[in-house]
């Protein structure tokens, strides 16, 4: 019989891994430079931990059979990081800057056949700071990640959950949720048919299309009737956008003069998870927009995990490695092959085995990475040369019984620095 992977699972072969590492290393360099530290949390979590924030449905979690407690495979990292930040790391000082590279799991309901169930994500969480300076830091880290990866055609769709929620609060309570669902899903047809006064219907329509250039949108929102907290949230958002623009105008290294931003106040979640800015990063190559990652501010999440219910603000984002991979692959930016080995060390007689290992060790002990493989026998010199040529190995060291090497450059018709396998 043939043993198959479970539906929706996937193995990463050496080239896939090389490409995934290429992406993760670049992200990690950015995270390190901004002073973030890597955290590794458990793949397995208790179901109540995963669902505490309200954004995760039981049905979306792959659950595990266990007699004692209900366990699931994490569908995202923020819950786990929040849990550990307020418990085991409780003594540490704030702000905490954490990042992760991790696999996550999600169960897809419905009709899709063989949909992927395991994904890789990288992201950061900045805990313990509210205010637009922290928001700006997170957005700039995100922008730098994308620049490091060589992605140019991207933009950030930025919403503000607090403003959107308070704009919603003017609707009659009985249909508030319907209005919210309709706006979140861009369902204009439903808005047009809801039993609302003409003024409220107009307000709902404006909210559904409250997006575009930040200056235009801010002006539009300013024309709506706002109460004091809404005005404050709006000023906070203005300051953030102003700061991003100012930074981009003074920073010589930026390829664009402006932070690529679409302000979208209809970008609201159907659940109250985010409390401040909320955003999606979108790649927009060839009219095929694709979400690469998302994030937002969650100032009420950590207290849910805190033993004394202490309020600690937080903000973060995650990037989907598979989606980045797909976009970068189309741009030909990823390694196209796994690196070839530099040396093939061939013991010519059984007496030369130890000498071959020792010579290989000497070759490996170099400042730079030298890849050395040992010939494991069973082939004649012609076959060995053919093998070395095919694997694009640069040099062969023939080890004689005496231990002395004869070095032979591989004279391939087509030596390439990389091999195809």
């Amino acid at each position, binding site marked *: 019989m043939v043993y198959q992977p479970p539906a929706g699972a996937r193995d990463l072969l050496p080239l896939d891994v090389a490409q995934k590492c290429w992406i993760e290393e670049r992200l990690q360099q950015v995270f390190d430079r901004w002073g973030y530290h890597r955290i590794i949390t458990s793949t397995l979590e208790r179901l109540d931990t995963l669902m505490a924030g309200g954004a995760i449905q039981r049905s979306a979690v792959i659950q595990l059979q266990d007699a004692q407690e209900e366990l699931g495979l994490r569908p995202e990292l923020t819950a786990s990081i929040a849990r550990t930040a307020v418990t085991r790391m409780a003594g540490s000082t704030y702000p905490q800057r954490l990042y992760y590279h991790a696999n996550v799991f999600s169960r897809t309901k419905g009709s899709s056949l063989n949909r992927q169930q395991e994904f890789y994500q990288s992201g950061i969480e900045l805990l313990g700071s509210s205010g637009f300076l922290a928001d700006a830091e997170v957005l700039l880290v995100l922008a730098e990640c994308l620049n490091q990866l060589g992605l140019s055609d991207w933009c950030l769709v930025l919403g503000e959950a607090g403003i959107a929620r308070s704009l919603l609060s003017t609707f009659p309570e009985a249909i508030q949720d319907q209005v919210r669902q309709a706006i979140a*899903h*861009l*369902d*204009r*047809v439903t808005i*047009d048919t809801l039993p609302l006064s003409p003024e409220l219907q107009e307000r709902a329509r404006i909210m559904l299309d409250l997006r*575009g250039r930040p200056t235009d949108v801010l002006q539009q929102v300013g024309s709506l009737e706002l109460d004091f907290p809404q005005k404050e949230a709006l000023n906070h958002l203005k300051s953030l956008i102003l700061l991003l623009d100012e930074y981009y105008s003074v920073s010589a290294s930026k390829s664009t003069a402006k932070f690529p931003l679409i302000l979208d106040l209809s970008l609201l979640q159907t659940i109250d998870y985010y409390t401040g800015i909320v955003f999606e990063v*979108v790649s927009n190559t060839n*009219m095929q*927009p694709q979400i690469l990652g998302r994030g937002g501010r969650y100032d009420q999440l950590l207290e849910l995990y805190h033993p004394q219910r202490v309020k600690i603000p937080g903000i973060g984002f995650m990037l989907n490695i598979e989606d980045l991979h797909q976009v970068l692959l189309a741009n030909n930016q990823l390694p196209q092959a796994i690196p070839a080995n530099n040396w093939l060390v061939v013991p010519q007689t059984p007496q030369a085995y130890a000498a071959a290992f020792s010579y290989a060790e000497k070759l490996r002990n170099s400042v730079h990475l030298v890849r050395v493989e040992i010939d494991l026998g069973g082939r004649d010199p012609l076959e060995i040369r053919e093998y070395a040529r095919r694997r694009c190995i640069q040099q062969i060291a023939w080890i004689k019984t005496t231990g002395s090497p004869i070095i032979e450059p591989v004279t391939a018709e087509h030596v390439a620095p990389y091999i195809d396998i």
Partner: protein
Amino acid sequence: MITVALPKGALLIDSIRLLQTVGLDFSTFLDSSNRLLQIYDPSHTAKALLVRAQDVPVYVEYGQAQLGIVGYDVLREKKPQVAHLVDLQFGRCRLSIAVKNTSPYRSVLELPPHGRVASKFVYCAREYFNSLDLPVEVVPLYGSVELGPITGMSEAIVDLVSTGRTLRDNGLIEIETLFESTARLIAHPLSYRLNTGNLSNLVEQVRSSSLSVV
């Protein structure tokens, strides 16, 4: 360039007529000698895909088409993640339950528990009978659903009715309407948010054009 997914069948003529009013001409699809499934507007400002009605929301959900025209019935059945932008008011029909006119059933609740209902609209039918707490077996069919009760395979059908003639000719009568349906303009949500290719402008043109027709 904006791509529009258009449904084969009943909605095609009205869809093409509507797009003509906003300056996009895809009438090649109406030419019986045409076999192309993807065509450009003569001004090369937009592209259209000709697909089965059920597949319109699929192309739109995955973003291969930024816009699509499809009946509300398909959206109710498939629940795709697309933006419902305009009720285009044409292609009016209703999803109804019908039985043989010689049968004793004159309302849904008279249908026998664990009876059979044949339909192309499996999810809509199941959802409806669940909401009534009436346990019936929904038999999926792909066409000529009327044969279900005629041959005795099922007690009833759930199917789209526009004029009601097919039902009448086949000796069936409607006993209940699940919902009314019209054609809808749908959009890929992310493209709509990004306003790819000035999508919102086109959507507004279609909206005002469809309102002026009514």
